[in-house]
C-alpha cells in the first residue's frame, strides 16, 4: 500500500477519498485554490498545498502544478476523484511519466473510452449493443446537420470528450438543430478543450442504468451490480438508487456480463462504471464508460458492503482483487440524493452565498458525504454539489420513507438548495411506483417548477417575528397594539408589491 497520496480534487469527493486513506493509514496531500482555503478537504488533509487562483484552469485543472506538488511532497500516487482531471488521459500520462501512480485506468484506456466514437466502435466489435447515431470525424456544422436529419428527431448531441451533461443538447426539431450544434460545441470547447460532438437517436421512455465494475491489474474483473440513475435535471443525475425497480435477475446477469465484456474489451483496470440506456421494452444499449469513481458510488457500497475507494487504492498499489463475483450479493435497497446549491423554481440555476447553518440528518443507515460546513462560501467557480445524502433499508419503500424523513430534517441556510424539490420527487406517487424515466422531472414537475409557491406559512411569519423581537436592539417606544386598537396596521397580513 502507498504511504502517501495526493488527492487532486475538492469538495465532498476529496473528503471521501481522504477518509479511505486515513482508514488504510495512507497519508494525504490536499490541494486547493485560493477560495477553498478554509474548505473541509483542506482541514482533513495531512498537508495541503495552495494551487493559486480560483479558475479551474489555474488550479484543479492545472496538470503541471499538481504534478509538481505531488513530486515535491513525495506523494506516490494521485487520486483524481471525479470531474476536473479524473478522465483526462494527458493527466494520467503525465503522472505515469513522472513515476507517480494514477489511481484509475491507464491513459490508453482513458483515451479509448474518453473518445465516445472509438469506444462505441470497440464495443460493437466486442458484441455489445449500441444506439444508432453519427460518430464521424467530419465535424463541420453542415455535415452534422445532414447527419442529424438522417437520424431524425428527437436526437441527442453530446460532446465526444464529455460527461456530466456538459455540452449536451436534445434537439426536438430541425429548426433547433443549427443553434444546438453551435451551443454544444461551445460548451464542449470550454469544458473539455475539445469541441468535437456526436449525434445519436433519442430513446423513448429511456432509463439510465449503470454497472459498477472493479478490475485489478491481473485480469480479474467483477461487477457490483447496477445503479438506476434516471432521475435527472439538465441531463445530470440528482437521485440514484439500487437495485433498479425494473431489474430482473435475468436482465441483471445479461447486463452484468455485458459490463464485464466492456471492461475486458477496453483493457480496463481499477474502478469504473459502464453506462447503459434501457428502453421501455427492456432492451439495453451501451452508452459509455466513466473511467473514474462515480458521484453515486455510495449506494453500491451500502448494498454490497464493498468499499470502492479502498479497492481503488489497493488495486492501484498492485494488490489482487480478492472478491469473487459469486461471493457478491445485493442486500436491501439504497437511495442517494444529491444536495445542490441551486434553485429548482428558477430553472435549477446554481446559487451562491455563505452557508450560515448546516445540520445533516443522522440515524440508522443514513450516510452523509459532504464537502461543506457552516461559514463556508459557495462560489460560482465550481460545480454546485454540496453534499450527498444516502440511505438504505430492507426494501425500496422503506428507503423512500427514510429518505423523505431525512430530507425533511436536512437544514442548510444561507444558500438556496434543491432539498425541498428532492423531497417532492421522492414523495411523488409515480416515483414511489418506480415509474421513472430520464424525462421524469420534465414530465411531472415542469408546471410545478414555474409556478409553485403557496406563500410564507403562518408558522414561519410567527417564528420570524419572535426571532426578530428576541434579537431586536431597540426599545419599543410605542406599543401599536395598545396605542390604537383601530389602527389599519392591524388588518395587514399578506399583500403584494407593485400590483
Amino acid at each position, binding site marked *: 500500500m502507498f504511504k502517501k497520496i495526493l488527492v487532486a480534487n475538492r469538495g465532498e469527493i476529496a473528503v471521501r477519498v481522504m477518509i479511505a486513506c486515513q482508514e488504510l493509514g495512507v497519508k494525504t496531500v490536499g490541494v486547493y485554490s485560493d477560495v477553498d482555503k478554509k474548505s473541509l478537504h483542506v482541514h482533513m488533509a495531512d498537508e495541503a498545498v495552495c494551487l493559486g487562483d480560483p479558475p479551474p484552469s489555474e488550479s484543479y485543472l492545472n496538470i503541471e502544478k499538481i504534478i509538481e506538488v505531488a513530486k515535491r511532497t513525495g506523494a506516490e500516487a494521485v487520486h483524481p476523484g471525479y470531474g476536473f482531471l479524473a478522465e483526462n488521459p494527458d493527466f494520467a500520462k503525465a503522472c505515469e511519466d513522472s513515476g507517480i501512480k494514477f489511481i484509475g485506468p491507464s491513459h490508453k484506456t482513458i483515451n479509448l473510452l474518453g473518445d465516445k466514437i472509438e469506444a462505441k466502435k470497440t464495443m460493437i466489435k466486442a458484441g455489445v449493443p449500441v444506439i444508432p447515431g453519427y460518430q464521424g470525424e467530419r465535424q463541420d456544422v453542415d455535415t452534422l446537420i445532414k447527419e442529424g436529419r438522417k437520424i431524425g428527431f428527437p436526437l441527442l448531441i453530446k460532446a465526444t470528450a464529455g460527461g456530466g451533461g456538459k455540452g449536451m443538447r436534445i434537439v426536438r426539431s430541425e429548426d433547433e438543430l443549427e*443553434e444546438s450544434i453551435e451551443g454544444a460545441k461551445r460548451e464542449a470547447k470550454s469544458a473539455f478543450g475539445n469541441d468535437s460532438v456526436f449525434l445519436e437517436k433519442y430513446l423513448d421512455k429511456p432509463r439510465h442504468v449503470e454497472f459498477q465494475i472493479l478490475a485489478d491489474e491481473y485480469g480479474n474483473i467483477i461487477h457490483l451490480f447496477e445503479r438506476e440513475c434516471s432521475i435527472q435535471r439538465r441531463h445530470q443525475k440528482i437521485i440514484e438508487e439500487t437495485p433498479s425497480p425494473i431489474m430482473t435477475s435475468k436482465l441483471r446477469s445479461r447486463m452484468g456480463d455485458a459490463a464485464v465484456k466492456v471492461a475486458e474489451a477496453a483493457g480496463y483496470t481499477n474502478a469504473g462504471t459502464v453506462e447503459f440506456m434501457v428502453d421501455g421494452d427492456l432492451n439495453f444499449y451501451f452508452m459509455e464508460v466513466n473511467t473514474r469513481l462515480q458521484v453515486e458510488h455510495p449506494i453500491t457500497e451500502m448494498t454490497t458492503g464493498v468499499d470502492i475507494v479502498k479497492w481503488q487504492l489497493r488495486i492501484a498499489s498492485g494488490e489482487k482483487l480478492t472478491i469473487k463475483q459469486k461471493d457478491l450479493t445485493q442486500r436491501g435497497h439504497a437511495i442517494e440524493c444529491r444536495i445542490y446549491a441551486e434553485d429548482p423554481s428558477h430553472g435549477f440555476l446554481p446559487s451562491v452565498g455563505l452557508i450560515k447553518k448546516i445540520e445533516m440528518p443522522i440515524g440508522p443507515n443514513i450516510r452523509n458525504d459532504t464537502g461543506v460546513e457552516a461559514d463556508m462560501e459557495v462560489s460560482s467557480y465550481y460545480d454546485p454539489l454540496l453534499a450527498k445524502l444516502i440511505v438504505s433499508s430492507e426494501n425500496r419503500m422503506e428507503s423512500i420513507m427514510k429518505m423523505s424523513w431525512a430530507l425533511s430534517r436536512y437544514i442548510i441556510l444561507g444558500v438556496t438548495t434543491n432539498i425541498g424539490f428532492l423531497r417532492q420527487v421522492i414523495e411523488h406517487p409515480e416515483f414511489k411506483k418506480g415509474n421513472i424515466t430520464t424525462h421524469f422531472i420534465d414530465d411531472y414537475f415542469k408546471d410545478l417548477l414555474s409556478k409553485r409557491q403557496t406563500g410564507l406559512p403562518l408558522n414561519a*411569519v410567527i417564528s420570524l417575528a419572535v426571532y426578530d423581537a428576541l434579537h431586536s436592539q431597540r426599545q419599543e417606544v410605542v406599543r401599536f397594539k395598545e396605542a390604537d386598537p383601530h389602527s389599519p396596521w392591524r388588518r395587514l397580513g399578506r399583500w403584494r408589491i407593485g400590483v
Partner: protein
Amino acid sequence: MFINYEYEGHVYSVIVEHRDNEFFITYDNNEYTVTAEEVKPGLLKVKLGDTVIKCAISEGDENKFIFIDGDVYKVKRVELTGRRVTERKEGDLNSPISGTVVKVNIHEGDHVKKDDVLLVIEAMKMEYLIRAPYDGVIKKIHFKEKEQVEIGQLTVEIEKGE
C-alpha cells in the same frame, strides 16, 4: 415592533411585542400569544397553544433564511414606504446568474426579434441564454465577451419595437 417581510413578491406585515416570556403577535387581523425559547443560536422552539413550532433561522447580509417543516424560505425585511419596493422596468435583462459572458450576438442599434439569443453567459460550465423579451432595437450592451457578470446585473437594454 412593526415588521415587514418580503417573500417572493409579497409583503407580510406583522406586529410583535415581547413582554416577559410572552410574545404578542398581530398578523392578518388575528392575534397570537406565544412563548418561545432559542434552544441554540438560530434554533427556535415556539409554543402556540398546543402546537410546538420548531425552526432554524439564520441571517445573511440582506436576507433571512428560515427552515420550517422541511422547507426553507428566504425572506427579506423591508421598510414600508407605501410604494413598490422593487421597481423592474419591462425589458430590463438582468443576468440570472453570476458567470462569464461567452458570446455577444448583437451590436448596439441592432434590430432583434422576440426570443433571439442576445448573450450567452457561462457559469459552472453550463450555458444560460439571454433572449429578447420582444421585438426591438438594442439600446445598450453592458458587457463584452469574456467579462464577468454578477447575478442581477443589467446585461442589455432593449427598446421595444412597433
